[in-house]
Structures are given as C-alpha cells and as structure tokens.
C-alpha cells in the first residue's frame, strides 16, 4: 500500500507511505483521493507528506485536481509535514499559496 487512509478526530488523513511521490503512483493517489471525495463524501482531507522526499509535477497536478474537486464539494485539502525538497517544489510551483501547509498534525486538524 502506497497510501494509507486514517481517520483522526473526524478528519481523513491520507498518509503517503513512500519516499517518491511521482507519476508512477499518481493514478493510485488520484483513485484514493477521489474515492474519499466522490464516494465517501469526505470534505476535510489532510495529505501527509512526512515520508516523502521527492514529488514531481504529475503528483502535484493530481493533488490540485483533488483540491478542485474537494472545493467544488465545499471541502478543503490541507498539507502536512513537507520535507525540504518537497517544500521547495511547493515554493517553485507556488502551491504554498494554494494549500494551507502545517508541520504539526494537531494544528492541521484544528484548522478545519
């Protein structure tokens, strides 16, 4: 399993369990994320990047697709635990302006 979904204090946390979040796993990520939003009507999602040390444009594109879908359902996706190389990607693509980013899971949960 590359992605683990856990419910914490009523919020769905998608934990990325691999170090490289890339095109290889984008489809699987999309399916996990869209299943939560479309089939389980989840509105509050946290994506935990704590174990990820590399993310590519395909994966981040999928993340934004998920946010668009979630926003359309009046929900939100928040980002947790960006490691420096992944944070650099969020800065380079200015996704840090699109997503709320947290270092601490409790802060992310409280922010909803």
């Amino acid at each position, binding site marked *: 399993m590359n992605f683990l979904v856990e419910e914490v204090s009523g919020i769905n946390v998608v934990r990325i369990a691999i170090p*490289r979040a*890339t*095109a*290889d796993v984008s489809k699987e990520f999309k399916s996990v994320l869209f299943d939560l939003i479309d089939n389980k009507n989840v509105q509050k999602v946290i994506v935990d990047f704590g174990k990820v040390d*590399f993310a*590519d*444009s*395909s994966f*981040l*594109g999928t993340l*934004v*697709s998920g*946010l*668009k879908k979630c*926003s359309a359902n009046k929900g939100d996706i928040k980002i947790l635990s960006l490691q420096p*190389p992944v944070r*650099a*990607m969020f800065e*380079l*693509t*200015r996704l840090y*302006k*699109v997503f709320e980013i947290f270092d601490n899971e409790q802060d992310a949960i409280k922010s909803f």
Partner: protein
Amino acid sequence: MKFIHLVGDALESYLRLKLLPGKVLSEDETLKSCRLMMYELYSNAVRHSPGSKVDIIIYFKLNYLAIDIETNGEEFIVRPKDKPGLEIRFPYPDSVLGTNFIVYRDKDEVVNCHVLSDSCLEFSKQKTGGGVTEELEIPDHFGLLLLTSLTNDVKYFRTKSGKNIFSVRKHFPKEAVN
C-alpha cells in the same frame, strides 16, 4: 519509470565533471534544480508522447548546458488556456506563426507558447503581477511551468519524420564551466 531517477543521477555526475568547484553559487541547489529539470523533461516526454524510443542528448556549449530529449511518439498539441477549444497541431499553420498563446496560468505567472515556425514552439514564463485568474489550473502543462522556471530556454520541435524534440538550455557563469 521506476528507475527514472537514474537520468537525474547521470546528469548530476556529468555536471560534477563539467562545473568547476566553487564557481557556481549555491552548488547543491544548482545540482538539485538540474536533477529536477532532467526528471521533469524525461518523465513528461515519456508520459506524454509514449513511443518506442527515447534519446537523451546532453552537452555543454560555451557556458550553457543543453539537453535534448527525442521521442518518436505522439506530437505535443498546444491547447491554449486563452483560446478554449483551440488545438494547435503540427505543422503549425501560417495563421499562428509568430503568435503567443498561454498554456499555463495562475495568479502570478503565465507560461507562454510562441509559435516560432511551422515546426517549432518556444515556451517562456512571464510574471503577470497577479490577479489574472483565481482559477486553479494545472493538469495539462504543469511540467512546462517547472521547466520554464528551472531553465533559460525551452523549445519543442516536431520533425516531418515524426520525432518530438524537447530542448532546454540552462546558462552558467562562463568561468564555472570546465
């Protein structure tokens, strides 16, 4: 795709040979951004133009690093964000030669596609000063945003024989190149 990071490793090894130590500002950051550039170039070429062959040509000319990725798959089709519904395909018609189209945009920046000839497109990033769009865009040409952010020159060529060539140039200080 599983071993795609090896192309970045190969580029990093080459750069360590070609760049003189201490002559490039933030050497680690430079190497990281070159690895990312290589990764994005290669992965986008492979994903978007699935073909049977990929050739990677890497060389230095004067003070710039040149990387050309050649594939024999499907052509890159321009779908401008500023002209919804329009598709620009090879060979690019006279009516669009010299024209700019937006292929990616967010609140701060756009990626322009300039039609240089009937077989060549040039991509460049431009700051818009904010406020162009509130809409989230990404899926089509997010890779192009990264490539235009990390390099000095991005071009795409389509040949009559069916080759796609994505070609990027990254400049270095002249005194840094061995």
